[in-house]
């Protein structure tokens, strides 16, 4: 009874492989005629799901608007996206599938620098442009000339946070509490530290945590006793929420601040509204901006997503599509290297997050906003020009 079964198995497997290979090939060709496929990998679930979802919604809105206006080069945009569950190791698999099987012409993603960096070498090697909406670590675009981003980078964010601590918070002694497991956090901590020390500030304590940790009291006790007047936490909202709550429990009342990794409504749920008094973060966009393009984006986003107010990640997701579409139009083709050259030549492009110009390092230089949390709400505080 057993033998025939064993013989059938490899044959069936081979047939399945042949069938699959056949499918993707014909599918790709047929779709290639009428649509332009754009790939996206995003953290739609898991630790940074809030970021990934916002960014993805902005992306969807942009694709919808482009198609409603007749598409690009006479073809509709087709977004092929997949979730990496915010875990390391998934993104590259997704990117390989998007590029090899779906034959996308460009790939959008990710929010987290660590996961953008997983994909970048493969996109570079395949000569497929990758546009990251909101990875701020400088290493991302240093991978090669096919990797772009539409947001500012951490040296700028580190510098502006140092200036903010010095001029607005008016403190001299700062403690730095960063996540060793996130390239974003390590990078931002480094650039903040450089700018802070060159500006004559004093770093009284420098401690680390690992993303996903739950207990931060030991580190916070060290910080408390070092006499810090403010704490810089360049992390993601999940950890930051717990850190802020535990710091207040330990009687630490000094201001705490960080970068765009803070921006999520979950921050308020996890930390508790009263604990977040006297906290600040820098980010790319404020929905209260008076810029007409920003206002148009906010209105369209609210209409599409049941009145949800867009955050910076949503606006950057939107802009990543718009910058790509603008480049396709200017290149007049989706072939390489013409498309890559057109993206690299992006200059003074008006989007939801302001004017985007890509510099020689394929990074966008644009202004940042500082947000403060008051009574469980995010409030716009000031804009910092590059």
């Amino acid at each position, binding site marked *: 009874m057993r033998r025939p079964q064993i013989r059938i198995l490899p044959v069936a497997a081979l047939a399945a492989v042949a069938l699959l290979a056949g499918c993707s090939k014909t599918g790709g060709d047929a779709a290639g005629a009428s649509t332009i496929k754009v790939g996206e990998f995003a953290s739609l679930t898991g630790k940074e799901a809030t970021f990934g979802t916002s960014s993805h919604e902005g992306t969807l809105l942009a694709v919808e608007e482009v198609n409603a206006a007749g598409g690009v080069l006479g073809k509709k945009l087709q977004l092929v996206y997949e979730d990496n569950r915010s875990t390391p190791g998934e993104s590259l698999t997704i990117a390989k599938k998007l590029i090899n099987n779906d034959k996308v012409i460009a790939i959008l993603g990710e929010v987290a620098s660590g996961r953008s960096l997983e994909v970048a070498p493969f996109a570079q090697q395949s000569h497929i442009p990758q546009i990251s909406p909101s990875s701020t670590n400088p290493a991302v675009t240093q991978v090669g000339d096919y990797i772009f981003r539409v947001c500012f980078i951490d040296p700028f964010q580190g510098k502006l946070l140092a200036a903010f601590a010095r001029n607005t918070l008016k403190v001299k002694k700062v403690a730095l509490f960063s996540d060793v497991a996130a390239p974003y956090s390590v990078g931002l901590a480094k650039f903040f530290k450089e700018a802070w020390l060159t500006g004559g500030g004093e770093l009284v304590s420098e401690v680390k945590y690992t993303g996903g940790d739950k207990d931060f*009291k030991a580190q916070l006790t060290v910080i408390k006793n070092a006499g810090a007047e403010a704490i810089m936490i360049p992390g993601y909202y999940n950890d930051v929420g717990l850190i802020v709550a535990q710091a207040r429990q330990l009687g630490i009342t000094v201001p705490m601040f960080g970068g765009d990794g803070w921006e999520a409504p979950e921050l308020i749920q996890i930390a508790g509204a009263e604990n977040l008094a006297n906290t600040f973060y820098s980010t790319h966009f404020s929905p209260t901006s008076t810029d007409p393009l920003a206002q148009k984006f906010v209105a369209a986003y609210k209409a599409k997503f049941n009145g949800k107010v867009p955050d910076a990640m949503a606006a950057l997701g939107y802009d990543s599509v718009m910058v790509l579409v603008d480049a396709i139009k200017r290149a007049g083709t989706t072939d390489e290297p013409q498309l890559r050259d057109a993206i690299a030549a992006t200059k003074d492009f008006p989007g939801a997050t302001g004017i985007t110009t890509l510099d020689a390092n394929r990074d966008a230089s644009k202004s940042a906003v500082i947000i403060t949390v008051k009574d469980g709400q995010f409030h716009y505080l000031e804009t910092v020009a590059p």
Partner: protein
Amino acid sequence: MTELLQQLINGLALGAIYALIALGYTMVYGVLRFINFAHSDVFMIGAFAGYFLARALPGGSVYAGLAVLLGAMAICALLGVIIEKLAYRPLRGRSTLTVLITAIGVSLLLQNLGQRIFGPNPRSFPALFPVHQFHFGGVVLSSAQIVVFVVAMVLLFALRHIVLHTRIGTAMRALSFNPVAASLVGINNDRVISFTFALGSALAAAGGILYASNYPSIDPLMGTLPGMKAFVAAVLGGIGNIAGAALGGLALGLVETAVVAFGGSTYRDAVAFAVLILILLLRPEGLLGKRTVEKV
């Protein structure tokens, strides 16, 4: 001085949670001689059961908090019995390795079912007990930390009492000594093993809820790291030894906190697992375990 005291409190509070989870590991091991790796995922289910119960009940008072705690413990006790019946009972009498690998399978199943049912996104856990901070000089102690400590101690002594001074406890010890002989003198092995799993899983639920009320962000993978740390604690104290698990938990909490306090915050987890390796090398029976000679 205040810093030292504060770190001591931080370390003990963290250690009490490890101890609480380690109790469940060590008890199942003590009776059945196998590590139930699904324990850390029952811990997660416990936290989620608490989350949903707390939303259904009006919260904020001590009684509501206790009701949620007991409710989640009951749910997980039932889950423990079901897991034992479906996954481990069919393997009774097979080699320990088979059961161990099955336990890892059950652990992965629970994690992925959790992601499917609860969704993989972290949720914020509501405050079950009234929250208050006590200040003594510069030292701060929170009510949540006190609750953890008290519950861990109460459960430790309750467990010791059950194992040492009740009929079912005597049966558990008899079973751990020699299952064949135990069944010969009229002990219903299946019932005793079911009871052991119910008890262990209820402990995991208590651990999950107390962990979540201290660190109010829960997700389906939350059990992995504390579960591994608790396993280290159980081995450190001498696996199978109830007092040893509590001692191991407290010791591990203090070691981790000390590492951070002396400036090594990057190496906190590395040190915890280095402790496991060192213990296995130098004193494999653990702090309170008895040295046994394996007869070949």
